[in-house]
């Protein structure tokens, strides 16, 4: 098979995928240009739009890192969604019980641990029984969804609320803002104080960013450094590329598998924790609109370097946020699901080609 032929096939694929998107836009009853403009406006058109995009991006940063860590170790963590939910619920309960900044800090730790623990069945079954982690993590996702749903509708439900949700957290237990803009009367930039639900309820909050995104970026950078420079990172990468050769090279692939999945689950759990502490302020039924599934796309879009997670999560966040504005002009939000799915295919196809050129 010649390179040119492969190239043509790739172009054919892209043309096909693009055609689907165009048909979709035409079918939506809106001018594609109008839809595009709306999408852009919705994602970047105002401080509020930016805030929404960043809010959508934040959990994807951590869930994307989660999937990425597992991928480096040669494992598919389809379970980021479940780990994120479990982490979020654990954090919410801890922070509600302990209250204040202590609740926040301990809550983060508990959320990370909960996410990590939730991967243990998958890790142990993969390492000691050879059962595929994709299947186990899918099952664990469904269990997490059902269990958190049952808990928040039952024993953990806020007594004064109709909806299945936990009570709201105090401001003191929430993540402080780095930057806040109130635009009701002129512009007021504030630093350091947490997002005030009161202001938000009044609709005066224009832009807010807390520690979560910088933390995620730092964590991603640190992971990349560790992966490339440390002996353990070398071993994890070796296992991801060739588990058999890794075993012959003295690497304990069983323990590494369990540890890598736990680390992956921890990152997703952290995402859930920060989602509770920094954005939602509570846990409720239907907490995640599928961050854990989008995360797989983020990790694939990221390519081979962990730093790629940041722009990938940003693109996904912007698309998700923009889709909400499309709904206003009667374009169903499902359109972004299709686009994201096709985007994953397009990127994965390009990467297959890269890998082939190596040999």
């Amino acid at each position, binding site marked *: 098979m010649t390179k040119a032929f492969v190239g043509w*096939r790739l172009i054919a*694929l892209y043309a096909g995928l693009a055609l689907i998107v165009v048909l*979709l836009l035409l*079918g*939506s*009853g809106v001018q594609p240009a109008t839809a595009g403009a709306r999408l852009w406006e919705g994602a970047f058109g105002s401080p509020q739009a930016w805030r929404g995009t960043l809010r959508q991006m934040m959990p994807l940063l951590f869930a994307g890192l989660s999937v990425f860590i597992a991928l480096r170790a040669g494992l*598919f963590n*389809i379970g980021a969604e479940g780990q994120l939910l479990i982490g979020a619920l654990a954090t919410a309960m801890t922070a509600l019980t302990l209250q204040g900044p202590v609740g926040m800090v301990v809550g983060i730790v508990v959320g990370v641990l909960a996410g990590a623990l939730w991967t243990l*069945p998958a890790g*142990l*079954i993969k390492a000691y*029984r050879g*059962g*595929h982690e*994709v*299947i*186990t993590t*899918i*099952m*664990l996702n*469904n*269990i997490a969804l*059902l*269990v958190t*749903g*049952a808990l928040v*509708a*039952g024993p953990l439900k806020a007594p004064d609320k109709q909806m299945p949700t936990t009570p709201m957290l105090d401001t003191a237990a929430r993540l402080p803002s780095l930057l806040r803009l109130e635009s009701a009367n002129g512009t007021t930039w504030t630093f350091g104080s947490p997002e005030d639900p009161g202001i938000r309820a009044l609709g005066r909050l224009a832009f807010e960013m807390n520690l979560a995104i910088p933390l995620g970026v730092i964590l991603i950078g640190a992971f990349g450094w560790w992966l490339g420079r440390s002996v353990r990172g070398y071993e994890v990468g070796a296992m991801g590329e060739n588990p058999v050769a890794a075993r012959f090279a003295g690497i304990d692939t069983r323990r590494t598998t369990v540890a890598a999945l736990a680390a992956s689950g921890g990152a997703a759990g952290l995402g859930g924790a920060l989602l509770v502490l920094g954005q939602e302020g509570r846990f409720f039924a239907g907490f995640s609109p*599928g961050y854990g*599934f*989008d995360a*797989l*796309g983020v990790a*694939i879009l990221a390519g081979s370097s962990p730093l790629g997670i940041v722009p990938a999560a940003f693109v996904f966040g912007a698309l998700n946020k923009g889709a909400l504005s499309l709904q206003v002009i009667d374009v*169903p*939000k*499902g*359109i*972004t*699901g*299709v*686009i*994201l*799915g*096709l985007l*994953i*295919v397009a990127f*994965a*196809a390009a990467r*297959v080609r890269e890998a082939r050129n190596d040999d």
Partner: protein
Amino acid sequence: MTDFVRIFLPTAVSLAAPLMLAAMGGYLSERSGVINIALEGKMLMAACAAALAASSSGNAAAGVAIGIVAALLMSGAHWLFTQVYRLDHIVSGMALNLVAVGGSNFLNKRFTDLSAMGQIPQLPLPVYYALAFTLPVALLVIATRTRPGLRMLAVGSDPAKSRQMGVEPLRVRLLGLVGTGLCTGLAGVLIVSNAGRFTDGMTGGKGYIALAALILGRWRPVPAAAAALLFGMFEALQIQFQGTALLGARLPSEFWLCIPYVVTIVAMAGLLGHSRAPAGLGKP
């Protein structure tokens, strides 16, 4: 006892039939070597397309046909991605699921005629049930007694060696995935027929439960169908016991819904005997 026969059994069977069909769909693709986590998406697309076609044409057969065509298209894309473009099977499956969730939402929101709601004409359900119960046996016979069956098992075990013997894995897998499209298409049509109308995400994880049944049945058609039937019964139990106290405690319905997933994990932990996937799964 009569309640059991009159109410529980039909409920269980109507809940199990789509699972059995989808599990057979999974059997055909996984046995030919294509990892299939996209059963869910294929059923969802089929359900959505069937609902739209049936309610707009007023013709049940058209609904069934269009539903199956939708699942076939998804399966065709699955084949194209995994076999022609050699994408990772899991990535392809996830992408297809994303497309299905988004696409069905889009089509449904955009093209459903609100005035015609609830008017989905239905084929007689016994047709589907007969299919769900005869298909596993038919597949068993096909797998062990026919040329395409033998080639499917061979390619699923070792595509490279099969190619040496003059069997083209690409073609065998296309056939397998067409079979998957037919089965999941029927399953999706059945789900929407049961419900009477399409709602977002209405397959509700049934594709994953079907996959679980396939694993529990160790990638063999009859045991996989039996596992799917069992899972259908658990779901029926959940409806039966909803709100009633059992052993002094009121169990939330989620408890019953969890059972298939938990059983699968327990099975994969090797506590229910050893389960081995086809050796050629995911190999080019």
